[in-house]
């Protein structure tokens, strides 16, 4: 089953040498602190707050429209700081999500309109259903499907999760074509 081709206007997106495609309408605050490893697509109206702390996004990720990726806040003994945030490879984040997580592993699929709470840790190969609210400081184990508000374990994610996510993100990138 092939993904549909999605066309975008060439002038709307910036394409970097490592193949990242970032929409011009997205807000990348503190872009010197934001690392996109390669072949990652950031769609329109996203807000990535690299000014608060470093944000590192892996390769072949897709970040949907209107997402907010924001490093979480932590109170240390000597003061406060925003915690650096890491997103793994082949992560598919659908539209309108709010990501406050500390770490998102690789091969993760986050459904539409989800809220990932502060300092959450999402392990590899998990699936967060759409409209989920994950409370702060939750750890989502690998190979699980979580959903609901507050989120709870729904079912197991099959062991083919890794190949599935690689297939989805790579074919999404190949089908994301520019028209002049």
């Amino acid at each position, binding site marked *: 089953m092939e993904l549909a081709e999605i066309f975008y206007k060439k002038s709307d997106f910036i394409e970097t040498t490592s193949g990242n495609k970032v929409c011009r309408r997205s807000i990348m605050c503190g872009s010197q602190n934001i690392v996109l490893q390669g072949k990652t697509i950031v769609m329109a109206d996203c*807000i990535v707050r690299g000014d608060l702390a470093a944000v590192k996004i892996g390769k072949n990720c897709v970040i949907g429209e209107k997402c907010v990726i924001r490093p979480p806040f932590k109170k240390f003994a000597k003061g*406060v700081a925003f915690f650096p945030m890491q997103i793994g490879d082949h992560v598919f984040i659908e539209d309108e999500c*709010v990501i406050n997580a500390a770490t998102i592993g690789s091969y993760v699929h986050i459904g539409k309109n989800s809220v990932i709470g502060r300092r959450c840790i999402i392990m590899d190969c998990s699936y967060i259903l759409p409209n989920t609210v994950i409370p702060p400081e939750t750890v989502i184990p690998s190979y699980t499907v979580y959903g609901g*508000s507050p989120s709870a374990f729904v079912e197991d994610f099959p062991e083919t999760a890794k190949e599935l996510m690689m297939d989805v993100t790579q074919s999404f990138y190949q089908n994301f074509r520019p028209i002049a």
Partner: protein
Amino acid sequence: MCPAINTGYQVTIAPGAYVCEERLQLVGEISIGSKTIIHPGASIIAEAGPIFIGDGNLIEEQCVIANRFPSGIDKDQMNQVVMIIGNNNVFEVGSLCEALKVGDNNILECKAQVGRSVTLTSGCVIGSMCSLTTNETLPENTVIFGSDHQRRTMPDRPAFQTHQLDFLARILPTSHYVLKHGTKSHTPAST
């Protein structure tokens, strides 16, 4: 003669407040108290009357604070209604606040929605993705959470965000265009 809908704005910013200019949408007459921090991408829409925002509030990205007339009402017949937001409130990412009176120390979590006829007193927490459109005054320290919108009362009000506000007050001006304090107005050219 019907007055045209005014899409200009007039915002008064107290010293010590930091309002990020990026993707900020302002409509109408707005007053922002000191030590309030507004992240990029927020919208403050004072269509039906002025909005007064108190001190020490934290308004995060994609927030909408709107003073709008209820739909289906003839706008020319209505008087201006003032919307007052107190001190030390937190409006997390994507929240929507249309309540006319918001007290102090409330927290609207991510994607929470509060309708026009609700009055938030102090210390209330509206959980993520919860939507409150009833006609009521929430008692102090009420928490609304979960997809069932369960309620309980906290023994104490939520903690102040002074640490975060101080941190943001230090780093936001270095990486964003920030509106200077004072009064700034903008009237769009009429066509």
